[in-house]
């Protein structure tokens, strides 16, 4: 049973669900592929899908060290938005958001993209002005965005802390109505299934140990399941880019690996109907509620380089404080799980989708904590870059050499210190 739809769910239900097939095959690696994508996260899987779908390149393998979607694309807070203002990000993330809007249909897999609006709280006149610049730029570039004054905000979200007791008074919010949340695992599985149906080999438990170079080009990889050749290799292993890139011949990169924690609460009946975020008063915070009922939320980076996918207490405390700051009713709600992901923090907080100095090697990296929403756009642009050997219009600014030129895509103005982004 290949096609997913209501009728087949009904029919399979009647017949004991025996007819459902594997969502993707479990092939052994072949000796040679046209393109190898290293990294079976959302970015790698989407890239493989679009290589096959948009460019007809079907001799593609996705090599995943563990299980697909096991990195950040399966451990994020599932927010999808395109409220970026800097040239480079602005066009890229909107391209991605547009792909999100039809993704379930495209993949025949319900990724549950819920355009429930992203509400970014405003706490002071200066804060508002900074936000106005961002949301105005979104509007003048064809991206939706609006301002909710206090009256409107109170009507839409009555339970925020508007009281005199608040340390900083909420004054309003900038809102992107088309933004929202999605089901992260479904995105990974949907792209895997879609790519698989187009002939892509998704190979799990296949760790890349080294690279093969021939005549100045990249020629293949050495894995724990043998050597595999390829004409072109795309690296999509954000979080671990720095451990693989030198082996591929890329040398040092403008990346530090940091960890970011996330939290989910016990399931409760619908309480929060938007994505609510703020960055103010040395607080950085975002929260939404999953369809299952858990509050899904997070805050700042741990602020030190780390490859440990483990949480710690100080950020746990800080994020709960940030919760109570705007949601004082949340005190009695309990946290069910705390976890962490490791991410490529780039020097300006923005990613890279680019060719490299090594012929045949392409790089997709530097996603900081914003990679999930980028998955379709990243896959689309990376596939384009690999297939055509030149960037797509939406990723032409996301190059690795931009710092050398002095072109920073710095949304926060934090400068070349990764933890400031």
């Amino acid at each position, binding site marked *: 049973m290949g096609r*997913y*739809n209501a009728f*087949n*769910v009904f029919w399979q*239900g009647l017949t004991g*669900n025996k007819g*459902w*097939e594997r969502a993707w095959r479990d092939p052994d690696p072949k000796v040679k592929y046209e393109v190898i994508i290293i990294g079976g996260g959302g970015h790698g899987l989407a890239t493989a899908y679009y290589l096959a779908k948009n460019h007809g390149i079907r001799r593609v393998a996705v090599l995943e060290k563990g*299980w697909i979607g*096991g990195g950040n694309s399966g451990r994020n807070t599932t927010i999808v938005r395109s409220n970026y203002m800097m040239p480079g990000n*602005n066009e890229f993330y909107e391209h991605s958001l547009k792909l999100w*809007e039809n993704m379930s*249909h495209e993949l025949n897999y*319900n990724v549950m*993209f*819920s355009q429930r609006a992203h509400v970014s709280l405003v706490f002071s006149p200066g804060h508002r002005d900074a936000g*106005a610049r961002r949301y*105005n*730029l979104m*509007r*003048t570039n*064809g991206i939706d*965005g609006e301002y909710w004054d206090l009256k409107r905000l109170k009507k839409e979200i009555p339970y925020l802390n508007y009281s005199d007791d*608040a*340390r*900083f008074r909420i004054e309003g919010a900038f809102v992107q109505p088309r933004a929202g949340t999605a089901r992260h*695992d479904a995105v990974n*599985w949907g792209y895997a299934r879609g790519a698989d149906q187009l002939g892509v080999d998704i190979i799990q438990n296949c760790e890349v140990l080294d690279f093969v170079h021939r005549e100045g080009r990249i020629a293949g990889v050495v894995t724990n399941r043998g050597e595999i050749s390829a004409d072109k290799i795309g690296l999509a292993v954000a979080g671990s880019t720095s451990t693989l890139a030198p082996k591929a011949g890329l040398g040092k990169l403008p990346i530090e690996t940091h960890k970011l924690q996330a939290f989910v*609460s016990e*399931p*409760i009946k*619908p*309480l929060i109907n938007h994505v609510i975020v703020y960055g103010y*008063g040395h607080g950085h915070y975002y929260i939404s509620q999953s*369809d*299952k*009922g858990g509050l899904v939320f997070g805050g700042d980076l741990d602020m030190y380089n780390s490859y440990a996918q*483990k*949480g710690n*207490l100080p950020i*746990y*405390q800080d994020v*709960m*404080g*940030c*919760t*109570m*700051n705007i949601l004082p*009713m949340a*005190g*009695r709600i*309990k*946290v*069910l*799980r*705390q976890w962490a992901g490791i991410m490529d923090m780039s020097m300006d907080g923005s990613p890279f989708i680019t060719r490299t100095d090594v012929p045949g090697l392409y790089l997709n990296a530097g996603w900081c904590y914003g990679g999930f929403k980028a998955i379709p756009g990243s896959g689309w642009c990376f596939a384009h870059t690999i297939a055509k050997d030149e960037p797509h219009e939406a990723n032409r600014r996301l190059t690795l050499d931009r710092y050398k*030129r*002095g072109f920073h895509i*710095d949304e926060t103005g934090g*400068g070349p210190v990764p933890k400031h982004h």
Partner: protein
Amino acid sequence: MSGYRLDRGGRVDRTKSVNFTWDGTRHIGYRGDTIASALMAHGVRTLGRSFKYHRPRGVSTAGVEEPGALVSLYSGEKRITNARATTTEIVEGLEVHGQNAWPSVRFDISAVNNLMGRFFSAGFYYKTFFGITGRGTWEWMQFEKIIRRAAGMGRATDRPDPDHYETVHDYCDVLVVGSGPAGLAAAETAAAAGLDVILAEQDFEFGGTLLNGITPSVGDLGAQQWLTERLSALGSAGARLWKRTTVFGLYDHGVAGLVERVTDHMANPGHLPRERLRIVRARHIVLATGAVERPFTFGNNDKPGVMLASAAQTYVNRFGVAPGREAVIATNNDTAYSAAITLAEAGIRTTLLDSRSTLPGEAAERAKAAGIAIRNAMVPVQANGPRGIASLDYGRHQTDRDLSEDRMPAEVVGISGGWTPVVSLISHRGIRPVWNDALSAFLVEDTGLEPVTMAGSAAGHFSADAALNSGEKAGEAAVAALKGQGTVAMPAPTVPWDEPLEPLWEVRDPGRKLKCFVDPQNDVTTSDVRLAHREGYVSVEHLKRYTTLGMSTDQGKMGNVIGLALMAEASGQTIPETGTTTFRPPYTPVSIGVLAGDARGKHWRPTRHTPMRAEHEKLGCVFVDAGFWYRSWYYPRGGEALGAAAMREATTVRDNVGMVDVSTLGKIMVQGPDASEFLNRVYSNAFAKLAVGKARYGLMLRDDGIVFDDGTTWRLSETDFFMTTTTANAGGVMLHLANLLQTRWPEMKVHITSVSDHWGGVAVAGPKARDVLDGACPDIEFTDQAFPFMGVRQGHMTTDEGNIPVMVGRLSFSGEKAWEVMTPADYAPAMFRSLHQRIAAVGGVLYGLEAMDCMRVEKGHVTGRELDGRTTAADMGLGGMASRKKHYIGRVLGEREDLVRDDRATLVGLIAKAPNARFKAGSILFPMGETEGHGLGHVTSVADSPQVKSWIGLGYVQGGLAQWEGKTIMAESPVDVQSCEVTVVSPHFFDPDGGRMHG
């Protein structure tokens, strides 16, 4: 009705009645009861409803692993959702409500979902609900509304939490987690060696298996006597004994997170915090966290009345409650025999089904003697009953299938499928447990670098003697580790049973369709596990995510191992080949409030006031947030609004004089023989030749050539400089300078000290500023000759507290003739009063941030709004300031090609073209006729200028003044539905040659 209170027995205090309500009905329990035991005593069986199918859920455990008996407590702002009935103590006045059901958990309309179960298989929602139009998300979002309403468990309050919480920092040598025999032994051994010990117990009583009859005696002593002696010994040895305290997470370097439930069990808690977060830094940790029994699955194994065998035993022994009149204990191992005997001895008719053909001789004899009917090679096949269980179909167990044989009456079925050591906490450290076939359990064999020792049944020592021994050894190991006495060999776990456990995960009768639940909260069945396998979601993580197995509030404490075993079977692999179990913090759910502690309301972040706060308040000042600071915003007169007050203040300053509090500026003393050279390197403009007694404006760049901060630096002597920074960057600049001196240029003889809080300061500005200051300082002359622009003087000021020391710089941010006067913070109020009197005498004003901002915009002076971390000095029109003769931080990278392009946006002034027209900061600037794209730049600041008599602003425009001066462009603010024609002018709107401040 099934359960009832036994006439005697249990640890509840039958002399202390406790009144509580269950869904509005009043009940009485005893002190020492949990909600589960108290309701069981009243024959209440259905306490909850499951997540997806809304099937009835009863009490199935007696501990934190409870997946089904989840209830809501209280109502209104005090409501708590998803409370485990099995661990929540009843307290006078407690309100307990069923949840996730309507109208009640007994009769729940949504139970129709159960009939739809065949369509609601694992992951079905990924395959449907996205609509038939093939576009967009609208259709899904309609389904989503329905799904969201059905999902979730309890309903949380939407009113502020009325309770408060606190955070405590603790230190100890050894933290022992768990107070069963192993934990007590470990704690006593460590304490006896003189170590500082904390013993943490999540229960409201110490003792673990000593409380429920699983460990009836230790050596020659009865459980209670041994427990009492141990606690007394620990108390005498100075150990801290904390009950109701859950160690919810282990973190780096022996740091543990603990939550103490302080008041939930108190009827009148007074001022105590509801819960307390304890952050314990332990040098060594002993995990004696015990083991939880695990069930095996059979048809309708989720029905109320089906519970763990040890739970049934606990209700009888600890709470004096019989879970039913007719009991079946079904097991695949020896341990359930003692549960069966406990039930039989309490007068419950008990049958024992053992899946094994060979029975444990001695235990079987004792069971028979207690009147228990034992059937070997028999398993339960399906539980029957309208809601709770009334009868049980059982059958013969064979290796590949089970055949139903007969039915017997049963009100309670106690299941034992083996024991799962609690390895959650060590798992938080990333250490993976390893499958032990003989014990049929995941065990941690090596704790790696962690300062952690496992003990008791958590380490696989399931017999009381072995647990005790391993506890003592764990205590010795902790002592050895901390006293540098090498390592202690920990005993290896051995199989304690007479007959081996027979692995059993699922009872199957090929002739019957059985609904067997692996995760009864999330309604994950054994069929769901097989479906996941069929569809390729084989990895343990995929299985969990696809089926939601183990994602419920109990985090799969019982079900995960079964799911893993079933997946192994479906894949034709062994359990270790299939995967292992992992756990993440917290061990049990922890309230958001307790982790936030007192970081809420006004205390969420620090509040900073200048030393002149009280003076401002006396004068009716309105404050505004600026970072953590409260800064003076404006001083309204007679109900003036912000705009009018700021306009009056700014006008008065320009016409007369005013004073503003500038204490929030960052202030750093830079001292030493190399101080001058140091400043010369960190500022982009020349500093080497700054004369003593002079100040200079300086622009500091980051390494990448972008402007970092600006401020003035005053040379007080050859080797002493007083640097001011922007308010926002005070900490950042200090860090930057410290970094340079300690890591990059350690050879420089310079010392820096943050003195931001040591000095209070005001600026006195306006044409009459000299009149105000003249005579204020007996030893400072304020004439142009004696005190020229950018001059710095030190002296004294006459105040109502006598002569106070002051440091004065002739600087101007407003563009007026102005002096900044600094005094040690304690004297600041006196200085303020003295100067305020003088200002009032000449008709001047106090002015706030709003008026100051207006005046600096009129002057084209930049602030953080212009300096946003993306601009170069040249962008700000200050390119000419940078020295060409010296090398400084940021110079090299500031010359990168994209930073020196001549089409970069540069600072300009903007004036609204039409009278009274207004434009806003954050507007995007476009050439006339264009409204799309990134435009020419943006508006950074605006002000309603009393001097220009129009709204003016600063902004960045591509091409800058050179291209646009005098031309009209559009300021577009779509989010305000506003566009405004503005004329581009020089940013120096007012007094461009600076005659007013110089003269």
